[in-house]
């Protein structure tokens, strides 16, 4: 059966991304059933099982990317922060660390002061001569 859903995301990671996409484009929140429908509309494929989507939502909730509130008999799911905020937080986590030592993330170039930016450009001009 899974093979027939060629258009639907199949790997768990892709599924999580797809669900987050739906939640990010609908900040007002969605029920699991609505997510199933919206995913199917996007991919143009058949609907996923609601339980599959609930499993994905549960994983995302445990990692604090999603929260939910009761809405009648179902739950309404919502992204904890917007996509822009996740991107910004993720970049800040890397860039704020003083020359990438604390988190030992290896990043391309450190932040420079305006004076040093000028020095850098000067050095480059030297190269291009």
């Amino acid at each position: 059966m899974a093979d027939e859903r060629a258009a639907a995301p199949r790997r768990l990671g892709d599924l999580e991304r797809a669900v987050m996409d739906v939640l990010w484009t609908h900040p007002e929140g969605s029920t699991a059933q609505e997510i199933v429908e919206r995913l199917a509309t996007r991919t143009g494929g058949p609907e996923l099982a609601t339980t599959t989507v609930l499993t994905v939502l549960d994983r995302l909730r445990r990692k604090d990317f999603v929260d939910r509130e009761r809405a009648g008999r179902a739950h309404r799911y919502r992204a904890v922060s917007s996509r822009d905020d996740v991107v910004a937080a993720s970049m800040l986590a890397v860039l704020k660390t003083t020359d990438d030592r604390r988190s030992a993330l290896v990043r391309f170039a450190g932040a420079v002061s305006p004076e040093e930016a000028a020095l850098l450009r000067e050095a480059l001009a030297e190269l291009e001569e």
Partner: protein
Amino acid sequence: MLADAWPLAVLAILLAWPVPTVLARAVWPRRHPRAAIALWQAVGVAGGLSLIGAPLAIGVAPLDGHLRTGLAELARDAVRLRVPEALGWGQEVALALAGVLAVRLVGVTLLSAVRIERDLRRQRYAVDLAAEHADRQVRVLEHAAPAAYCLPGTRPRIVITEGTIAALAPDELEAVLAHERAHARWRHELVVQPFVAWESALPLPPARRATAAVTALVEMLADDHAARAVSRPALARALVAIGGTAGVVPTRRGTGGGGTAADEKASTPTLDRVHRLIRATTAATATSSTATATAATGKTTARATAATATGRRTTPTATTTERLIAPAAWLTATLLLIAPTWFVLR
């Protein structure tokens, strides 16, 4: 009496202060980053072991001047829950110091590794979810500020922003990606992390200098790879383009008085790296023009090309010295690891 204690103490002191200070100031490491990293690692391991070994040797000296047999004797007494009578308070303090240092070094290293891995897992997960484009390894974030970094691991992610793509020409972007791929492929975080951990265990200037030096050397290794894979000028231009605007990214720096100092330290390596690339380029241009000239006169020989391939126009003696630097660093690193071990176990 203190047979083992003195040599170990001297080694510990040398490796704890003067050696890292001198090594951090040396210029040759930027020409031989790999050998220099090996030497730093040996200094770190030998330094840590002698720092624990010296107070241990001082502590067990009244039992036996020889550290190994002295420890064995201490252990025999400890099993019988007895403190040897020969130990004065000075020796007890030395033994306690050795114990505290050992626990702290091991403990902080483990804690730091766990904390970093937890942060990284969260980071990898976040960029996987939020990236607007993703291939097997690269994640593109929709953000105007130029940034490129590697989230290391067994399945590393290379993260770049829309701002990076917008700021760079195709070959410059290729150079940035090659640089990050080098970090990812050779697991450079495994080189840097122990130094970060040791620095938090012993937050002293030499440890700080060691971490800064090793971080810079790892960047140079990745630069060399990117320069080979793409080109030196492209990489230098990319460094200037990204390094020159990275200040735009809002950071928490600059809020306190220490902000300026941190900025200075963080940025100097970028400038260093650009200069290093430029110097190598001009040297290479000089070399290739020499080679062309030689070829034109029909006197070209493989040896002439090989001699100039070192990329430095120097006198023969200086070239010989230059060639000996890397092997000497490797040899010193090996000796630093073997000699104290042999000395203690003999």
